[in-house]
């Protein structure tokens, strides 16, 4: 894994020589076209043709630039960085939701990737908790029998036994987040992507969630983790990577990279 590109700040590099990677990226970049005055309708494009004021303006934004990275199987790997540094975009590319603009990404073949980019995103307010769990699980390709097998555990973990047949619109936000977390965890992914969601529910539930995460980690699953919280990073991660404006600025042991992060944000440790 010596192929870190010549980025502005060459990072201290810790690596594991074992080839068993879970995710491997090579000079991966992602650009977005920022559009002002954009609207997906023919009328506005037609008007824009005649009136400069309404014309679409485009600007290229580099959300990720030349990222080369290898994440090992069984590793808990964190991404840290300020808002807009590209963390979430990177998770979306790993999960397959977005395609890289250039460079390559490989994911451990046959791996089921669980995304917790936002909890309960697949959830529909008009369906009951039970119906939502089944729909959500089928998004990950789970069969009915597989869901049947884990459903009691999902309900138990979420502590929503009494409300599971109530439409989600009657849930509090904490309740739907709990259901989201529980159903995401029990789809049994090989690679789990988590974006800022560990702060769900009350203290007791948080404690239970982090125990569950530790258990998943022990079972040899790979966890990729995005957060602003330095404390959570330090607690969970084997390695973390600092992103700034789409570039990889530092990678290594949490303590060292966090120091760099704090220096960058100007926040004392």
């Amino acid at each position, binding site marked *: 894994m010596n192929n870190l590109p010549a980025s502005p700040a060459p990072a201290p590099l810790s690596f594991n020589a074992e080839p068993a990677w879970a995710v491997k990226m090579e000079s991966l970049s992602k650009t977005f076209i920022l559009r002002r005055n954009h609207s997906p309708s023919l009328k506005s494009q037609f008007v824009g043709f005649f009136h400069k004021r309404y014309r679409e303006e485009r600007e290229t934004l580099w959300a990720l630039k030349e990222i080369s990275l290898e994440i090992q199987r069984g590793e808990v790997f964190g991404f840290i960085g300020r808002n807009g540094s590209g963390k979430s975009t990177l998770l979306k590319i790993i999960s397959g939701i977005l395609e890289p603009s250039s460079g390559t990404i490989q994911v451990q073949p046959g791996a089921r990737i669980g995304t917790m980019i936002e909890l309960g*995103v697949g959830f*529909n307010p008009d369906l009951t908790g039970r119906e939502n769990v089944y729909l959500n699980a089928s998004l990950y390709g789970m069969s009915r029998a597989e869901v049947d097998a884990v459903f009691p555990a999902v309900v138990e973990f979420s502590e929503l036994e009494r409300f599971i047949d109530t439409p989600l619109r009657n849930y509090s936000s904490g309740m739907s987040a709990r259901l989201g977390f529980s159903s995401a965890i029990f789809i049994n992914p090989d690679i789990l992507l988590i974006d800022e969601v560990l702060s769900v529910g009350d203290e007791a539930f948080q404690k239970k969630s982090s125990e569950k995460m530790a258990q998943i980690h022990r079972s040899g699953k790979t966890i990729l983790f995005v957060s602003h919280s330095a404390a959570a990073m330090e607690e969970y991660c084997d390695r973390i990577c600092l992103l700034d404006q789409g570039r990889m600025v530092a990678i290594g042991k949490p303590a060292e990279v966090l120091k760099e992060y704090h220096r960058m944000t100007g926040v004392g440790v």
Partner: protein
Amino acid sequence: MKQVLAYRQLIKNLVIKDLKLKYRDSVFGFLWSLLNPVFMIVTYVIAFKYIMKASAPNYVLFLLAGVLHWNLFAQCLSASTGAVVDNAGLVKKVYFPLEALPLGAIFFSLVQYLFALAVFFPVALIFLHLRLGWVLLWVFPILFLQILFSIGLGFLVSTVTVFYRDAKHFVEIFLMLGFWLTPVVYQFTDVPVKARAWIADNPMTDFISSYQAVLLHNQTPAPLFWRNMLTAVFISLLIGALTFSRFKTRFAEEI
């Protein structure tokens, strides 16, 4: 395609979700799906049989054959228009084979048609002089081709809608125009010869005429109809699948 098969459960759940959402909290529930064709047929009977004095024999059965299957087509197309954009929350946040969305919309429409068929079929047998016979089974291969045809168009319109929301309005107008360019309420033979080319070139004419041949005349559809239907299926699937797979990776960014 293999991936899509592995996601049967997802498609099934999407269909169940849409059905539940459609009928939950509505008093008449599924009855609404029957009322629509009933009112269409009543209106056309009054307008064409009693006011315009249309002379078609067994006009009500003729209308039923056309209206049910045209409605299936229209429903497939309008449901798949929003199939991707209405599920923006999923597309942007979860990775799954996006083909499931338009396919779900098509099967959702198919299930509703099958419900309606289950009610109208006995009605037609008892009241509308539908003759029972093995030849009626030809409805299913025609239906199969019509669904394939709709899948191709569904892939196309669900993709176009992501980039141009106008597609929704275009589809509405297109369907209205298409309805009158298809022999649903009038017989093809009643059309003046000069205007026939327009109607004969419309692929839905072949589908609707085939249903009419089977249901009204207990005849196997003519080879010409089969040839045209297969061509329509081939072209629509080709264009639909190519468009969808070319643009699907941009969906999450565009919606």
